[in-house]
Each structure stands twice: as C-alpha cells, then as structure tokens.
C-alpha cells in the first residue's frame, strides 16, 4: 500500500520541546517514595522543565495471563483479586462478566444487587485512598490518607465478614456470588454508608477550598479531550476532560439501569478536576448504595445451572468490560472448548491511562510530575499484571 492512498491519519503524538540548556537525565524509581510502588520514569530535564519522559514498566510483571492460560477458568478468579489490589471486587466482577458472556450464564437478581453494592463500596474506598495518596504526594503527609484509611477499614470489615478476606475477596463466581450475605450484614452496611457523607464532607472541608491544593493542581497536567479519547484513556481521567463515557451508563451492565445516579464531568482536565470528580463520584456511589441496600431481594445468589467446577465453555471468544474505579477493566477470553482458556487477556485501565503521561508532563516542572502521576491513580499490579 502506498502512503499516498492513506487519508490524513491525524496522528496524536506528544509535542517535541526544544531544550534551552543542557539536559539532565533523572531516573525516578523503581524505588522512589512517590511512585506508588515499583515504577520508573526516565525523565530528561532542562533546568526544572520536563523535556522528555519515558515510563518504564514491568517491575511487577507477575505473568498473570500466562498462569491463567495454564489453569482452569475458575482458578483464575483469585488471581484477578491481585490485579488491582485495591479493588478486588470489581476485578472479580469484570472477569465473571466476561465468562458469563462467553458461556451465556444468567445471574440471579440478588447476586446482581450484591455485586452492585460491593462494587460501589469498592469504588468509594478506592477513590478515598486515591485522594489520600494524591495529597500525600502534595506534601500533606499523613492526615488525608489517614482519614481515608479510617473509612477504608470500615469497608474492609464489611468485605471481611462477607468473603473472609480483607483485600483479596475472591467473592464472585460465574453466574453469581460465592456465599450469601451473613446475618446482619445489610444493617451494618447501612450504618457505614450512612456515615460516609460525613466523611466526604470532612474531606471536602479540608481540601476542596484549600489554597495550596488549588495552586498546585489547577491548570497542571491538563489533558485534552480529543487526545484522551484517541489514547484510550478511561475512568475519572477521561471524564475530567468532559467526555461523558461511564460504562455503567453506556453498557448498562448488571442492574445499573435501575438506579438513579449522575455521572460527574470535569471542564478543564487538570489535576484539580480529577480530584473533584473522585469526590463527586463517591457521593454518587453513596446514592447508589442508599438505593440498593433497602431493595435487595431474596432469592438464590448463584445460577443453579452454572457449574463452576468442570466448567468448559463452547469454543468462541468474548470481551467483557466494566467500569472499574480506575477505568474500563476488560477481560478478553478465547475458549477452545477445553477447561482452560486458550487466551486470557486483561485490559488494564491503569496501563493504558499512562499512555498520555508524557503528554501531560512535558513542559511542566519536575515537582509536578509526581503530582500528575499520582492523579492518574494507578496500581502497579494492574499495570504490569
């Protein structure tokens, strides 16, 4: 094919910045106090200005996909917990959803309710921690993160009484959930949810009008909407640029149809918008929880026809995705009719959201790089898998 036949591709590339002085190369990471784990950025600096930035991944590449292709479908479920280890419930759900698509399994209504409730609780604790970590990186050492973790512990207690584990819940199954809610769980959950608005108010009182936060985050790390769409950015990062794309509304998976909630959108696509959106999404999640908890119906929690053991879907493939707290989390499965998936692929939102890290950081001060990176909200377990 000759190049002349091609239409104008309108390629999105990071701009080239001409340095004025000598370049200084800095390797930030993989052991760096601010990089949320083992991540490296090779940064070229001209004075304080960032001229080039290359992320280096793979320090937590744990071969999740390879291991999953060697074992049965069900055996991969606990591994999905360890992808984004803040949000094991949503990871479980994404994987279960993909398998349900592949094999055509129905989910009973009670299980759908439990899934929504656990997913929204997960979203709240993830966003709270993300805000806390962002503030940590801004120099507010401790306080916001401690507040966030105080609330997170309550939610983890709920998860623990439900699934037996604080973080690695391994709770969902193809066609439903593993165990039913323990006695009194809903009351306990209602109580905790009732306390959440107060926590969000408290966080906002501390942060939203804070001058240091505004000075350091407004207009910093701006992302354009067209670039965000082209680069496959999803989740809060995308919506902060003003693009209305929330899979809970778009795909209407599960029973999200039946709840009233709004999708907050940003205007500027800067760090402040991302912070603000996380806070607003927590409020919306509380709304969903308030609707879901009283309405939860009785019934089975697992499709009686689903056979988790000896599960062999027909040959074919399926791609299932959900709106995880970090963005679109998808699973792509190819079955060849045997008990193990032929191909098992995780679409990691954290990794793909980092595509535009360089674009956002170019021309900014090196001190802001850490902030911009923190505002993306990634988890290395998912980036590297």
């Amino acid at each position, binding site marked *: 094919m000759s190049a002349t036949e091609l239409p104008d591709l309108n390629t999105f590339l990071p701009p080239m910045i001409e340095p004025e002085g000598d370049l200084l190369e800095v390797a930030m990471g993989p052991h760096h106090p601010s990089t949320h784990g*083992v991540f490296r950025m090779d940064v070229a600096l001209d004075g304080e200005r960032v001229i080039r930035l290359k992320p280096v991944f793979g*320090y937590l590449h744990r*071969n999740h996909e390879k*291991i999953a292709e060697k074992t049965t479908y069900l055996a991969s479920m606990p591994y999905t917990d360890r992808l984004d280890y803040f949000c094991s419930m949503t990871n479980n759900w994404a994987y279960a959803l993909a398998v349900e698509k592949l094999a055509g399994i129905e989910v009973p209504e009670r299980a759908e309710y439990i899934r929504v409730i656990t997913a929204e609780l997960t979203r709240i604790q993830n966003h709270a921690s993300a805000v806390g970590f962002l503030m940590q990186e801004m120099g507010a050492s401790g306080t916001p993160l401690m507040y966030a973790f105080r609330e997170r*512990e309550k939610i983890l207690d709920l998860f623990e009484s439900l699934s037996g584990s604080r*973080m690695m819940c391994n709770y969902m199954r193809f066609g439903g959930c593993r165990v039913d809610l323990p006695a009194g769980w809903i009351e306990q959950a209602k109580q905790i949810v009732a306390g959440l608005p107060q926590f969000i108010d408290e966080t906002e009182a501390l942060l939203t009008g804070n001058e240091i936060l505004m000075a350091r985050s407004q207009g910093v790390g701006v992302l354009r909407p067209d670039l965000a769409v082209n680069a496959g950015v999803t989740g809060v990062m995308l919506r902060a640029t003003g693009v209305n794309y929330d899979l809970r509304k778009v795909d209407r998976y599960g029973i999200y149809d039946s709840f009233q909630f709004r999708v907050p959108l940003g205007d500027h696509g800067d760090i402040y918008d991302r912070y603000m959106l996380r806070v607003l999404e927590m409020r919306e999640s509380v709304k969903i929880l308030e609707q879901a908890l009283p309405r939860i119906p009785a019934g089975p929690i697992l499709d009686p026809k689903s056979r988790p053991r000896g599960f062999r879907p027909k040959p074919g493939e399926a791609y299932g995705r959900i709106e995880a707290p970090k963005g679109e989390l998808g699973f792509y499965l190819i079955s060849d009719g045997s008990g193990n998936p032929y191909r098992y692929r995780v679409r990691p939102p954290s990794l793909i959201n980092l595509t535009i890290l360089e674009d956002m950081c170019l021309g900014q001060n090196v001190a802001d790089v850490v902030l911009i990176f923190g505002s993306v909200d990634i988890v290395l377990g998912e980036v590297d898998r």
Partner: protein
Amino acid sequence: MAAEPELQPDLKIELGKQGVFVTTLNELYNWGRKNSVWPMQFGLACCAIEMIATTMARYDLARFGAEVFRPSPRQADLMIISGTVTKKMAPQVVRLYNQMAEPRYVIAMGACAISGGPFKQGYNVLKGIDRYIPVDVHIPGCPPRPEALIHAFMTLQKKIAAQPLTGEDRPRHLDAEAQGEFPVPVPGAHDLEPPVNRLVWPLPAPATDLTAAAAKEPA
C-alpha cells in the same frame, strides 16, 4: 567484653521493686535498638497496602517505635519485602539491601516474598527473596493481616533483644569479617544470572547416601 554473668530474673524483679534497676550493657544496648527500628519506605505489591494499613491509625505501628518510614536505604534499619519480587526487580532489591547500613534486618512479608506465592509458576517471578539476601522473619499470608505484620515486628524485636554482642553469634555489624555486600544478579537472556546466591540459599543435602556410594566406589 567477657561473657556476662547471667542475672537471675527473679533477683532483677526484686531489686526493681526496691527501686534499683539492674541491667547489662548487652540488654541496654539491644533495648535501645529494638525499640527504634526504622523501616524503609518500600512497597512492592499488594502486601504493601497492608503494610500501609498497619502504619495507619487503626493498627498504629508507632507503638513499636517503627513508624518512621525512611525513603532512603541509608537511614533505614529494616527492609520489609512487601510483595512479589519479580526477576526484573530483584537486582534493585539486592542493591537497596546492599546500600543499607548495618545493623539491618529483613522481613519477608507474604507468600510471594517467601516463595513466589500464588505466582510461583510465573516466568518473571523470583521464587523467594531469600535466594539473594538473608531474611530474618518470614510472615506467611496472602496478604498477611496487619496483625501478622505487627507479630513479625515483635518477633524481630525479640530476635534483636536476644543477640549477644560478643562471640560467634554476634550480629553482623559487630563482626568485621561478616559479609556485607551481596552479589547483585544481572538480567540475562533467559533468566537472572546467577539464578540464586548459594551463600545465602544453600542446597539441602542430597537424599542419596553419599558415604555408602563412596564406600562402594573403590571396589
């Protein structure tokens, strides 16, 4: 320092009741050390989140004098290997360990750090960090609960308190001969080179009876 005569614990308590505090240099020295273990701020994977949770208000690691997480290995006494060590990361972990000043301790937190854990079959996963550096306390769990990490701290404190300052078993920082640098593995074409440091991770003795085999040989 000669071997110190052992104090009768009962006697110590009796004297303490009278307002006389008796101690040994050894005890005093270790008491100071064990209550100010500064860990390195160094998280690898999921277990790191539980480590962070341990430092937060609910579990409050500060009660053990260990809340000061230092970003620099030069200022840290303790390295908590909190998570999966991949082969790509292992050289960096060993290098960080080499940069720490003695006395230094290592807690291997979680199944991954101990043996590779759930990811043991992975091609890029190191099957246990004790292949390259000596580990003082192992905590099983995936992830270990914060209580388990606190238990590991207390175990480490007990270990520090029991260290004699002289003799064969003295800690490395009082032993001029002790090995200080650990070889850093280099990434190779298929695997790390060397895949294991035999000085810290010796092979178990072979099951085959060698002396019997040797006795047969000359005939």
